[in-house]
């Protein structure tokens, strides 16, 4: 394990402890820490173990999955602006989740939401990769992403209109803004298979992503099969993004920011980018979630909104720098 990975893992551990301490309920720090160790007041233990920790784990897992998916998609498309949120993958995933909920599939089987979210994500990813194979450049892919996001938004409204038993608009807004508030261990267990299998697929593609830096043809001549790499990354990122959206709704930009920050520290190697990007994105989302719990707003700020408030400007900054480099 590299020093970078170790350092990030330590920061994540500290944030987990901090998550146990911080929250709306007034719990003294010493009591919260005792509860974390499984001691003290049972009520405090319940707050820490059933409310705060699952929320922190959800934030970390969603962030890490999006960071990993972002790093893998960037390697596959050779584009530093690629990320499930920007490319419309998350929006399509949310569409899948919304359809599963509003048409009653979720009531039949609790895995319906994650499965539908993963299917939605894979539709968008397949479209993007198809466009990339046909020679679409960075700008085209981003434009397709914008189109996919808007289209998914429209389809979600349509789904709401047509749903036999529509929930309130507030539910839809929740899906589109993203949040990990009130998530339980059960929610995390629903997302876990997608995260674990998705991460495994992406890691299998890791060495191939480095070979792909030379383009499809040369990668193939080196012994890395581009079709296999694409399949692994499409499958992996769809599972990662789908499970994340099913858990927390759409949260954008973390998947761009984390790899961008990490890249210089891993010699710009698309494979070595994967784990540290996942850790950093998990840290960012966990820190953001702690921050919105502390911020003195009457209504709690949505995590997706907080992520976009920071990530949006960073995205524009990276895009502007890229534009200058290619001009």
């Amino acid at each position: 394990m590299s020093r970078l990975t170790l350092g990030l893992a330590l920061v994540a551990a500290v944030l987990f402890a901090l998550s146990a301490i911080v929250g709306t309920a007034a719990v003294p720090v010493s009591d919260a820490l005792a509860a974390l160790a499984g001691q003290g007041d049972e009520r405090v233990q319940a707050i820490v173990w059933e409310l705060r920790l699952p929320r922190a784990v959800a934030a970390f897992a969603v962030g890490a999955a999006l960071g990993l998916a972002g790093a893998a998609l960037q390697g596959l498309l050779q584009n530093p602006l690629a990320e499930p949120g920007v490319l419309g993958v998350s929006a399509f995933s949310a569409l899948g989740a919304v359809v599963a909920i509003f048409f009653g599939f979720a009531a039949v089987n609790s895995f319906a939401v994650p499965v539908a979210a993963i299917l939605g994500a894979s539709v968008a990813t397949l479209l993007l990769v198809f466009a990339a194979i046909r020679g679409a450049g960075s700008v085209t892919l981003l434009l397709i992403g914008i189109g996919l996001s808007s289209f998914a938004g429209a389809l979600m409204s349509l789904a709401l209109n047509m749903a036999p038993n529509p929930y309130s608009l507030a539910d839809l807004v929740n899906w589109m803004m993203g949040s990990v508030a009130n998530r339980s261990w059960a929610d995390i267990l629903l997302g876990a298979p997608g995260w674990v299998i998705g991460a495994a697929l992406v890691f299998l593609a890791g060495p191939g992503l480095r070979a792909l830096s030379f383009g499809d043809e040369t990668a193939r001549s080196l012994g890395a099969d581009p079709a296999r790499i694409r399949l692994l990354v499409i499958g992996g990122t769809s599972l990662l993004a789908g499970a994340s959206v099913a858990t927390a709704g759409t949260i954008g930009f973390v998947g761009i920011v984390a790899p961008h920050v990490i890249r210089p520290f891993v010699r710009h190697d698309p494979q070595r980018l994967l784990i540290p990007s996942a850790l950093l994105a998990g840290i960012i989302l966990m820190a953001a979630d702690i921050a919105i719990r502390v911020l003195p707003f009457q209504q709690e700020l949505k995590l997706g909104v907080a992520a976009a408030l920071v990530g949006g400007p960073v995205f524009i900054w990276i895009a502007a720098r890229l534009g200058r480099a290619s001009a």
Partner: protein
Amino acid sequence: MISAEHLTVTLNGQEVARDVSFWLNDGEMAALVGPNGAGKSSVLKALAGVTPSAGEVRIGGYPADKLTVRERARHLAWLPQTRPVAWNLVVEDVVALGRFAQAPAPFDRMGQADRAAVCEALDKADAAHLSGRPFQALSGGEQARVHLARLLASPAPVLLLDEPCAALDVAHQLDLMRALAAEAAAGRTLLIVLHDLELAARFCPRILVMQAGALVADGAPEAALSAGTLADVFGVRKNADGRLERANR
């Protein structure tokens, strides 16, 4: 050893290489020459297995279409004409990719032997002093040498090079050809697309000439680059000083 039999490459419905047959033995170093658009790069790509083709390619005696992508990479390495590098990788990691089929790891996670091979290849390509540098900060010629090192780092017995001299200064072109001759002397088979006919004739004991998708001459430099071929294929002739000049047609 590599051979092509009735190799035909079709691009967008057009035959860019037609019924090309030849055989290169172990230790043989051949130049593939011809005017622009003659089909040289397409033949190399077909041999490398990165473009579909009809006919039969045999590498080391095996039918190439029976080999997996990785097996083929163990037998054959290809230096393409255009060499994009998407990320600002460090030089050693670019060269280490030459051994991907054996050791798909970045340089500092490779085993001792693989790392030694990478360093040796950097040395041969006169690029050892570039190690540790970010690739995109290098000049065009330096990048070309790092790509060459990437090719030489491969243990494959067959090397295909598409215009390896492009972007190199004269001294480095000569160094490059000498380095390639040394690889042939060590038993590797080399097929090199070249535009400089004099360089080809000087360093390559065998020359294959392509014109409009067909192989029109194959042999020692004097025979393959006869006055007739020079005039018919390239539209040039040798003047009294032995220099090439445009032939009047």
